[in-house]
């Protein structure tokens, strides 16, 4: 079995054990132990709430770097759809792609290209296929992991297509293998990512055996260098083979997928806690008459990803400006490549993660549940977090699962101390 490894790690040198990330985590994956936040990999969904909530910048994202370019004979860079929106709306996309290639890549290939292909399929699937409504977009890996972790009854609602980046990576690989006679191991596919969820999805993919991407680099890590290259460039420098179509950029905004796919009866929800609330409603059967749920872990959609540079709402405005200004070059080979491209579906089953279940054995689970209630009733109910668990009930669960002790509760400990003093004075 593949190891459940995630991109976000806590930096012991910066973490103060303040409990903010623990309180913000939608799956209660974080505990504070000995003054340090610890992430439980089996519960982590890579949603970045911990990163966003941390005042000390104490979370790092384990990702790749440009140095890895030299490991490959031929390198392709796939900028996330959000990439262009990080630059002022009057930037020329052709020029931007050229600057990007100057980082040392052989080919720029846009995620937006897969969008071109996918958007019509999405509408067709919604209209024609017998999938439980509402159909939930498969775009955001953090959302899929939330479903696996807390809403397993919704697995059957997930759109069966892969997300644009994975489709694009496969397209780019195929293109280079067929046209340049390269082998898979000679090609390095690099992805410029807006989020840790996509970094994790390369080493620990969902719905596919293996990712076609080799290296993920945070957008913010290359931003300054691209900007530098850009400022020193004449306007006449353009990337001829570029394929970042401005009209595909709204895909990175919440609601963009539905809009571009021509789906009218949809809900676009963003921000992982709001997504969870909508999922609760779907589970109750209240949204059966909705066709499509476009759920994004980040506020505002992928423009809100924590590895971007620009504020998500400014980025949205950049997208609008880019779309106005551009009549840009477009990859000529594409239509023929697309026509023969079939790998757009997820190939592996998405299975539930069993991390919320108290015990495999139902009777034992009931027994544990009884103990949890009994312990919870003895705790103060303040959910203060001093014990290192996000709520009194979470502490009770940890105690029953053998991961914490009653004495971790500061109030209980004090009470015990008082009892001891009383005993001694008697």
């Amino acid at each position, binding site marked *: 079995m593949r190891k459940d490894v995630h991109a976000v790690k806590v930096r012991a040198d910066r973490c103060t054990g303040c409990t903010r990330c623990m309180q913000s985590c939608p799956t209660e994956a974080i505990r504070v132990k000995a003054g340090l936040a610890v992430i439980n990999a089996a519960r982590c969904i890579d949603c970045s709430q911990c990163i966003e909530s941390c005042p000390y910048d104490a979370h790092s994202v384990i990702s790749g770097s440009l140095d890895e370019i030299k490991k490959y004979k031929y390198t392709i860079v796939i900028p996330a759809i959000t990439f262009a929106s990080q630059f002022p709306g009057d930037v020329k996309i052709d020029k931007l792609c050229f600057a990007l290639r100057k980082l040392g890549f052989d080919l720029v290939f846009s995620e937006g290209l897969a969008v071109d292909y996918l958007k019509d399929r999405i509408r067709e699937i919604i209209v024609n296929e017998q999938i439980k409504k509402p159909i939930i977009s498969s775009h955001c890996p953090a959302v899929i992991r939330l479903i696996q972790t807390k809403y*397993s009854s919704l697995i059957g609602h997930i759109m069966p297509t892969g997300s644009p980046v994975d489709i694009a990576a496969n397209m780019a690989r195929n293109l280079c293998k067929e046209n340049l006679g390269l082998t898979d191991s000679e090609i390095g596919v690099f992805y410029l990512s807006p989020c840790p969820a996509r970094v994790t999805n390369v080493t620990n993919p969902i719905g596919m055996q293996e990712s076609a991407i080799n290296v993920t680099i945070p957008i913010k890590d290359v931003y300054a260098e691209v900007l530098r290259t850009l400022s020193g460039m004449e306007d006449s420098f353009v990337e001829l083979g570029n394929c970042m179509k401005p009209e595909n950029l709204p895909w990175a905004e919440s609601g963009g997928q539905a809009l571009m796919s021509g789906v009218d009866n949809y809900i676009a929800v963003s921000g992982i806690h709001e997504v969870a609330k909508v999922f609760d409603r779907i589970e*109750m059967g209240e949204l059966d008459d909705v066709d499509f749920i476009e759920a994004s872990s980040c506020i505002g959609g992928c423009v809100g990803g924590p590895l971007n540079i620009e504020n998500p709402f400014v980025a949205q405005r950049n997208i609008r400006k880019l779309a106005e200004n551009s009549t840009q070059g477009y990859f000529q080979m594409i239509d023929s490549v697309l026509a023969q491209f079939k790998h757009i579906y997820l190939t592996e089953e998405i299975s539930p993660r069993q991390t919320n279940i108290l*015990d495999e054995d139902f*009777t034992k*689970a*009931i027994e544990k*549940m009884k103990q949890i209630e009994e312990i919870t009733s003895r705790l103060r109910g303040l959910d203060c977090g001093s014990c290192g668990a996000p709520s009194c009930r979470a502490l009770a669960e940890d105690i029953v699962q053998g991961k914490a002790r009653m004495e971790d509760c500061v109030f209980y400990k004090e009470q015990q101390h008082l009892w001891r003093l009383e005993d001694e004075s008697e």
Partner: protein
Amino acid sequence: MTEEIVASFDYQIEKDDFKIAGSASSHIKKILKQLGLPNPLVRRASIIAYELEINLVIHTVGGAMHLEVHPNCVVISTEDMGPGIEDVDQAMTEGYSTANDTAREMGFGAGMGLPNIRRCSDEFSIRSTFGTGTWIRSEIHVG
């Protein structure tokens, strides 16, 4: 014979408390998921708990809801302090509702609650004394 293991939970439900209406049933849903019960069963139980909870909020002076998890069944029940139901058969009819305007404005009062509860239950019983109160019990079999 060993004693049967039962986990039980009690919830107080206040009259007209629309703001937190649904919180008891979400707690129930969370518990049943943690116990590892199959999704369709959790869904049925959540619908039952939700409809019962809303009925206490909109039709009664307040009451209590209970969850009991036994190794072979899940039982959700409510009891309230009034006003009771005059004609239980009528109340069980699809579309019948006495919900007031405020409740209707909040989107309740389709008259489908009790029929849905019965449909989702393996065993269902209701007893009501007009002027006194109502007692409802719904059981779902496990396995």
